[in-house]
């Protein structure tokens, strides 16, 4: 049993028992369909460069906000309407990590992108998706410093 945040752990556990590739893909597409863009009260276009994920070819942005109760709320934007993987990951991260403490968020594994999308992720895609995770980590570390 890993020490990941509980909702993330549950999601990964459920995903891991699905062996059929198309079924996995359908789950990820469902997640992408549930993607919610950052609300205008948080950010409007043009989005700030400081929130942009470098090396993400889908034009992803992340906002990591510390709430009054000490938990984190994540917001995302994906400029490319075909950035399905980026939307899927963003949706998964919002569902499983928003509401967690900064300490718990730091427990997310470095290879989360591979755990979700499989080992066949291309280098470029992996860099982009991992970039989303790395930005969240950096932001959360800043809250703790």
């Amino acid at each position: 049993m890993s020490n990941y945040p509980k909702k993330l752990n549950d999601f990964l556990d459920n995903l891991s028992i699905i062996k059929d590739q198309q079924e996995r893909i359908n789950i990820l597409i469902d997640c992408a369909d549930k993607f919610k863009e950052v609300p205008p009260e948080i950010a409007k276009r043009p989005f700030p460069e400081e929130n942009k994920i470098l090396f993400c070819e889908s034009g992803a942005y992340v906002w990591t906000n510390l709430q009054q109760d000490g938990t984190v709320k994540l917001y995302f934007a994906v400029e490319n309407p075909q950035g399905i993987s980026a939307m899927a990951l963003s949706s998964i991260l919002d569902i499983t990590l928003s509401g967690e403490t900064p300490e718990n968020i730091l427990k997310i594994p470095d290879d989360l992108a591979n755990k979700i999308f499989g080992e066949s992720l291309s280098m470029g895609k992996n860099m982009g998706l991992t970039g989303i995770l790395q930005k969240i980590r950096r932001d959360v570390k800043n809250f703790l410093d």
Partner: protein
Amino acid sequence: MIDIMDRGYSNPSALVSTEWVADHLNDKSIRIIESNEDQLIYSTGHIPGAVHVDWTTDLNDQVRRDYLDRKAFQTLMIRIGVTPATTVIFYGDKSNWWACYAYWVFQLFGHSNAKIMDGGRLKWIDEKRELTRDISNYPKTKYLAPERDDKKIRAFRNQVLKHINKKNKLVDVRSADEYTGKRLHMPEYPNEGSLRGGHIPNAKSIPWATAVNTSDGTFKTAKELSEIYEKENKLKPTDNIIVYCRIGERSSHTWFVMKNLLGFKNVRNYDGSWTEWGNLVGVPIEK
């Protein structure tokens, strides 16, 4: 929109329009193939009858950095219900970036019955044409492929070294920042996987996207392309040219343009590209 046949291409039959594809959805002599950068896109909706060929899992060796071998190519073709007589029609995202990549790989095995759907996936969607999430399955076929031929259209690093020593021409199709080496490794940020930035000596910078119309991803006319490649960059259709990018993906697009639309006779794709050259000990680099 100028008809494909009226754009002055050297091989206009290498391209088909979205309208043509729509009219041939039930044509049993063709197989429509979608290839995208993101492996999830196909399943969100694709042209009815299209199969998915994923560039990472279907076209690349899963252990070595190389393309699939003859046996794997045969397995792929059998799986997607293609025979040597089938005309394959490629399309995909990013103005057919990955469709051209798949097209080029298929040429390594001599499957010349191949075309690209002009404008790709986005044009099909913008024209509000039918999409389906139904997965297409076809009866298995028989396919006997030749051994992969890397001589005609593929270049390796030693050949690139000889090429530049002879002062032959190259085309770097990456962005201007990649060409100049402006994008360099920064702490805590992943890089493109190269220790050095810059470009291969003698390479002209002609980003791949200059070959397409930004409004709809279709290829520019032969006259417009000739202006870019021949007039501005002094390339001749008889030149011996090597194209490259990061892993040979964007350069496949340019290879298609130069070979099929402009009629360049001798163009090879260096798929090792910058992820190899920028990490190779001792090779020359320009900035």
